[in-house]
């Protein structure tokens, strides 16, 4: 069942926000937002820096509590998140994987095969005894993806996963994310990369100043007229003009 299929749309959402809002002191990072994430969806969050993309991602994941409104998620929901700058412990690649699997509650006898399969998947199996910190940033991001994929998440959150990478590493990571999505994993990613949003997403949500300005299927987002703020963003206009 893919997100575009009518069945997916009829299924109960994996996550639902009802007028969820977040403030950091006087800064309103997310205005009351209502949103549903259906199984198998591939959602890209677009917007300028500080528009609320990461806050929305964190609220959807459950890392950030809402000041008002509510987040509802199916229980139990297996979820994982890949961050812009992956954090890996000063341990071997294999130990980092084992730790992630242990934290996710994967049974002991399943951890080793899952670890090897995930590392194979991202091309790091041969480097599993290496200190994770000795890997390049691109390899560390692939390790973060392996760590996330290994726990078989129903929803994978990605916070600008290729923003810190060189073009080669960007392509590798994007290809892996595309593979995960093709297998039916639900994706919610924030990105500044319009091409990446076009290639990976089936639905684009554009945010500005903590507010959802546009929420459309990808093709419609890029081909049909948009509200002014989103149209300016696509054209690359400076936000204060």
């Amino acid at each position: 069942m893919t997100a575009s299929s009518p069945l997916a749309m009829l299924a109960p959402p994996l996550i639902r926000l009802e007028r969820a809002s977040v403030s950091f002191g006087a800064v309103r990072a997310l205005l009351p937002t209502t949103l549903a994430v259906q199984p198998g969806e591939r959602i890209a969050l677009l917007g300028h820096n500080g528009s609320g993309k990461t806050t929305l991602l964190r609220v959807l994941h459950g890392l950030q509590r809402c000041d008002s409104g509510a987040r509802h998620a199916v229980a139990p929901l297996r979820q994982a998140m890949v961050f812009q700058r992956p954090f890996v412990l000063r341990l071997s690649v294999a130990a980092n994987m084992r730790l992630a699997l242990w934290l996710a509650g994967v049974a002991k006898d399943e951890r080793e095969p899952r670890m090897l399969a995930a590392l194979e998947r991202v091309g790091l199996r041969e480097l599993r005894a290496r200190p994770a910190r000795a890997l390049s940033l691109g390899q560390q991001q692939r390790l973060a993806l392996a760590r996330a994929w290994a726990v078989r998440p129903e929803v994978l959150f990605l916070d600008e996963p290729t923003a810190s990478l060189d073009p080669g590493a960007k392509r590798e990571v994007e290809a892996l994310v595309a593979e995960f999505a093709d297998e039916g994993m639900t994706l919610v990613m924030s990105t500044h990369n319009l091409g990446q949003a076009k290639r990976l997403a089936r639905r684009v949500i554009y945010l500005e100043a903590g507010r959802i300005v546009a929420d459309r299927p990808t093709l419609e987002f890029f081909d049909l007229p948009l509200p002014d703020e989103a149209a300016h963003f696509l054209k690359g206009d400076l936000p204060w003009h």
Partner: protein
Amino acid sequence: MSAFGESLTTAARLIADADAALLHIVGLSLAVSASACLLAAGFGLAGGAALAAARFPGQRALVLLLNTLLALPSVVVGLVVYLLLSRSGPLGSLGILFTPSAMVVAQTILVLPVVAALTRQLVADGLRGSGEQLRSMGAGTGLRALLMLVHERWSVLTVLLTAFGRAIAEVGAVMVVGGNIDGVTRVMTTTIALETSKGDLPLALALGLLLLGVVALVNLGIAGVQRWRGALALGNTP
């Protein structure tokens, strides 16, 4: 010959002679300070990491107090422990005043804030960049703190070395609770203080150099282990 030159010659002679009394003093200094550091590590690492990871009312005040205790005068610690362990004190029944055990207790109290405060800062800095990622993987507060201690283990070792340096170099606390009894509680710093008071400055300085040499050897040993572990890790193949 200048006092410094004479001190160097005396230090060299002390090492060459390997005097039994001196070896006992060096051995006791190392044993007391290492024991105090181990005890302080047990409480300080756990306490400091917990203080960095948890959120509770009064946390800032506790951090302020802990950081203030970094300047705890060793003589004051010695006096407090003396009052606690003296016959009329609440712990007098233990009968450990003027023994190495009392010196360990005093030095533990002295270095505990060092271990706890530096660990708290270390873990707090680490969690600022990684805490959310560990949380997203399912690690609770205590586990995040523990993982950060593992992650920063070499820096933790530096914290413990700092604490060891503070312990082995202090004189006030061990003098008060140990009494500087020859062959029983005499350690390097109390010997230096004694020789200074007797006017034998070259010997006092020589003992000071010896103390620095002992600490340098400990540091070298740990640095060697760090390099060996690092090389081992990078040389690993699947």
